């Protein structure tokens, strides 16, 4: 005679832990990094403001009133009664509207550049690490060289070439229209922004490629790759199904740091007179256009300088939080 197992009792006494997916674990760890979490929320707020740009600003970016330059904060536009929250700039354009629209363009440029450079970096790094040999030698010597040459002078030459011969790199009309819609620019102006994205991404993929290669090198020798191969998996399958997903952690961190870097790099390019040109507002070119007023009207450069600073800081913290969250050796 068998005694019926009393499942209820066993269930009640068993110590069970709810199963957690890797994503949940990472999220839990990330939330614990208070500064990273605060930064994430801050960035969501900033992104929302820039997305809502047309609804919260009352002036057009290029609407200039020649007589009303250097108006103080909160000045009122007499004929229409609209308020210049941040005053006006050196030629009488509403500073608040420009900063908000500039955020939309600067952040899109940073996001697009990061996206492109991570994709290129992942592919180059994966091929280089997986195949090794002379492919690896050539690619890595090239990457090392690109990393170590002073990028600024090269950026200068390349961006000045691209900006003055706009048709040097053909960009499909469709891409320009999509990017233009995101940045609220005409396709013609969007070309300028896309060129800067290409220039930034052209230098940004290097670190991702190195990280990817390093991870792939160690993954290549793992048993599960061997197992997959013995089951007849092709190289492409192994790379895309086993290698890249397993090597994503450092890439995600790199992406968040790149975001910070690109926001600053765009400003550095603008300072040297390249980058996206004036009627189109970006934080970088607003900062560099007003740097001459640093000593008598310091708020003019400080207004676009602050969001650059805050965004870059926030992206850095998010990267720091992700690094800790994604590191499997760290315990909770």
């Amino acid at each position: 005679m068998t005694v019926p197992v009393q499942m209820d009792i066993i269930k009640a006494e068993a110590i069970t832990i709810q199963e957690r997916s890797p994503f949940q674990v990472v999220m839990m760890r990330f939330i614990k990094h208070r500064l990273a979490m605060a930064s994430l929320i801050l960035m969501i707020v900033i992104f929302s403001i820039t997305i809502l740009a047309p609804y919260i600003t009352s002036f057009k970016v290029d609407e200039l009133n020649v007589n009303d330059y250097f108006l103080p904060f909160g000045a009122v536009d007499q004929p229409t009664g609209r308020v210049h929250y941040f005053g006006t700039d050196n030629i009488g354009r509403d500073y608040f509207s420009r900063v908000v629209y500039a955020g939309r363009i600067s952040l899109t440029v940073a996001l697009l550049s990061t996206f492109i450079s991570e994709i290129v970096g992942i592919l180059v790094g994966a091929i280089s690490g997986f195949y090794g040999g002379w492919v690896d030698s050539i690619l890595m010597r090239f990457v090392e060289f690109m990393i170590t040459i002073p990028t600024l002078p090269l950026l200068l030459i390349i961006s000045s070439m691209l900006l003055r011969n706009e048709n040097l790199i053909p960009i499909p009309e469709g891409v320009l229209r999509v990017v233009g819609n995101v940045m609220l620019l005409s396709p013609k102006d969007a070309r300028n922004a896309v060129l800067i994205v290409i220039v930034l991404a052209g230098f940004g993929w290097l670190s991702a490629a190195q990280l990817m290669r390093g991870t792939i090198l160690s993954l290549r020798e793992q048993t599960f790759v061997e197992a997959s191969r013995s089951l007849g998996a092709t190289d492409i399958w192994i790379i895309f199904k086993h290698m890249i997903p397993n090597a994503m952690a450092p890439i995600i961190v790199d992406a968040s740091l790149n975001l910070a870097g690109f926001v600053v790099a765009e400003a550095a390019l603008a300072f040297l007179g390249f980058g996206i040109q004036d009627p189109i507002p970006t934080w970088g070119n607003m900062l560099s256009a007003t740097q001459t007023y640093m000593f008598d009207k310091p708020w003019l450069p400080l207004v676009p300088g602050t969001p650059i600073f805050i965004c870059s800081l926030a992206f850095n913290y998010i990267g720091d939080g992700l690094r800790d969250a994604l590191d499997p050796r760290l315990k909770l």
Partner: protein
Amino acid sequence: MTAYLIRRVLQSILVVFVSAVASYVLLSFAPGGPLTGLRQITQSSRFKITEEDIARIRASFELDLNLPVRFSRWLIGVPRGPLVIGGKEYFGELVVGCRKPIEAEFLNSRGVLDVKVVGCKEEVLLKDIVGRRTSRGILFGDFGLSWSILRDRPVSDLIASRIPKTLQLIGLETLLSLLIGIPLGIYSAVKQYSNFDYIFTTLAFMGTAMPSFFFGLLFILIFSILPKNAGFTYLPAALSESIRGYTIPLIGAVVAGSLKDRTLHMILPVAVLTILNIAGWSRFIRASMLDVLRQDYVRTARAKGLSQNMVIMKHALRNALIPFVTIVVFTIPGLFGGAIITESIFSWPGMGRLYILALGSYDYPVAMALFFITAVLVVIATLLRDVLYTIVDPRIRLT
């Protein structure tokens, strides 16, 4: 090891060559150029510039030669004329360039008039370039003559006058960054997630979160302009020394060009560069220290009962510094190249500013010389790094 070194040196030479070609081609296709403005002058009626004048000016910049010929003359100083073997001249009739190109105007896609070369009226033959002045070639240490910054003076003079200033600036900055950055990084790794770590991390991020020109300008505003206007002690913010004497409250009279004067001028640019550098380096040290502190051998060392100091200094730090070698080695090209943006902000007469000046005034021999030397130094640094790796970390073997 020997075979590896030989292979790497050969690779390095190739890399330098490729980068020299690339930068030469890049510069020659860059918009502008030394002839900018000539066209406007020819169109105005006040000056009479004939076609012959333009041809002469083009010849003086070697712009009438084809790109490969120009490049070879710049790199190794040949060809200087027809090949002479046994008293006979060969290839004298070879076309090497164009003295008077035929230019056509056309409307480009933006509807602006543009000029394009469509043919050649008068060609330059190899026998025509005999007796033209030329450098002995950059490979043999002759960088040629400056086009505009110091017209017709050797580029090497220009570089020699700038290099001490950059060495001072970057040398001091590197030293300070090492002395401050490494201990800071170690401390914040050992005390991870302490208040010190949080505050320090924030400060380090701040350093990287600002465009360096903005940072420099803020420093000038805070330490130079505002205190000067308020009558407090301030720091001079431009150039490497003053032209005439001045008096600073609390510091007193300063004689122009004295040691005191030069020291005061160095403080701000060195401070800006050091802070930016510490931000990056100490983060790097912190990360690699954290990595090492979690290793088994550190746990073993602790288990043996070694003191905290012993564990950190002897077992952890040495291993944590291995990846740092990479970064330190790459300050070598920086010592030569200077800091472009910071030097511009502080009008520091160093190499970085020379570079911007050279690009801005289309002084391509100077720009190319800087490019070339930097490329060589970078390649040497890369090689040095890989060799140093094997010395500091015996586990790594070069094959």
